[in-house]
């Protein structure tokens, strides 16, 4: 879960995190209940909810993929079908 909400600190009736979330991920439709993180896989991890919570009840939790990325950057640069063509002697000029 990317966003943790501390039930003891969260103020009933407040909807700031719901409004501040740019991704429509946090829903507080029932003002008496703790806000629901409805679409957790769509979180930007921008931290707006945490930043603007008036009682510090919200905490962003970074997932393992972000803290310990195992991806080789080269795998993101496109398929290298022809190695000779793609191994660059010199960097491209602007």
């Amino acid at each position, binding site marked *: 879960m990317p966003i943790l909400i501390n039930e003891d600190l969260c103020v009933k009736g407040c909807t700031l995190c*719901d*409004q*501040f*979330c*740019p*991704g*429509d991920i946090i829903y507080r439709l029932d003002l008496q209940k703790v806000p629901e993180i*409805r*679409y957790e*896989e*769509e*979180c*930007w*991890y*921008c*931290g*707006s909810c*945490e*930043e603007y919570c008036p009682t510090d009840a919200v905490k*962003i939790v*970074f*997932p393992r*993929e*972000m*803290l*310990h*990325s195992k*991806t080789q*950057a*080269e795998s*993101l*640069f*496109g*398929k*290298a*079908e*022809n190695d000779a*063509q*793609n*191994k*660059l002697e010199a*960097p*491209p*000029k*602007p």
Partner: protein
Amino acid sequence: MNHPARQLFETDVLVIGGGVAGCLAAIGATESGARVAVLDKGGLLERCGSIAAGVDQILAVAEDGPAWDTPDYLLRHVPKLTDYVVDMKPVETFVRGLPGMLRKLEGLGVPFRDPSTGKYFRHRTFGLPGEYHIDFDGSKFKPKISRAVIDSTAQVHLRTMAVNLLTQNNQVLGASAFHIRTGEFYFFRSAAVILATGDTNRLSRNTSGLPFDSWHCPYNTGDAQAMAARRGALMANMEFTENTITPKGISSQGTNSLTGLGAHFINAKGERFMLKYDPAGERARRDILTSAIISETLAGNAPVYCDCRHLPGDILTRLEETLGVDRPSLPRWFKEKGIDLKKEPFEVTVSEFSSRRGGVYFRGSGILIDQKTGTNITGLFAAGDCCTVSGGISGAAVMGYEAGKEAAKFSRRNGAGRRMQDQELEAEQERLFSALGASGKLSPGEYEEKIRQVVTDYIGYRRTEEKLRSAVERLRNLAAEEGILRARDGHELMRAHEARNIREVAEMVATAALERRESRGSYSHYRADFPNRDDANWRKMIVLKKGESGYEVGYRPTGVENPPEEKHHADIDQ
């Protein structure tokens, strides 16, 4: 199924997108006396748009004394800064509008001056020929300009996604939209429409593998570009893509200020390599920085690190203070990862790519605009990162404001187009909601993943004719799968439309990249099969227009008059 009710609105100027460009457009149009409606997918105008969470610098011409601090001086350098592919006429509107916009934004209460000195804290970055950037605490930037919109006569419709433009005989009639929570259908009838939904993200993969972990706002999904293109708007510079340097694992903004304040990059061998690529070193243009990191990685010199250890104490303090301004969560990420940037270098790599401006100011990838922000569709205007003039928050502000004034003028002179018939609106509502409640197999997220796979593998950074042909074909095949998308509620319907828009933009990128048979702008467009820049044939813009089967390709001159050996060259290396 039974669709919720529909609501019709009439206005003089419809602004789609409530970010910086959209807000300044609304301000410009209301100042001209127009009735204005602003739509945004976000829940709070103060926090809508790409810099919703904050911003730490602005490109400015302040006319504050130095010779470089004038529009004329900056304009002379634009051709070289954009590798000679840029549309000079609208860029002139942008650059000449900079000093006035700085004052206007200050008038709205944005604190650009350093409170301790009363002066602008300026620095040189991105290869610009002077200290054009002002560092400032922009955490209240968006709230301030939004406040001006809220206090005006403009009507703001939040959590509202615009989907299609409606036109007749190439003239705008309005736009269809829906509320992302209630699923209510809206039609906005308007003489003039300003598109300002920003750039396109979630296009390719990154190191965390999380599509919404993106450098720029992942909720900016090319909505304007796709809706304009589907109606026959001309699109230009789509081949140029952009990425940035990010700490490995988090695709975040906010790292520009590191290089701007003097951080170095070092490779696995401990070499400071940037000077090999550009005399400006780490202060080179963004596309040169990211390209150098890609080159070092491909040459086997990864990992690459960012090193701040040599910086003086006051600069380090400033760095730490401003790190979270663009992205409040970034300091926490460093902390959780256990990195103290004062004491150790940290690994960096490149982010996923976006369709915005190919790493250079002034040349945007998107809807082709003229010097008054108009498009080839009558009554349709565009500003900000969705159009062909892109220049950060100041570009969005200047061009947005211009679009607001122009759209209001157009609306006053021409009035609204014809009213939509009931059955036309019904058909549009049916189209727009077709995924809702459908028993389709494909979730928007799964569909998007297929798009990202194609873009990463077949467009990528080492482009070839073979791969790009394959990309165009695969992306066009994916268009056929739009019909099996499913959405269970308004929110998912939004994601379904976003996925369609991302695919549309990806097809434009692939088509334009296939056409440009040369390399230009480092890895913003690198063709492994045409590795050199070819000024004799390609110093022109590639323009796309959606046809029956794919995009038709045309060209357009840039208006750049200076020869490549321009006489002002010496200024740049000062």
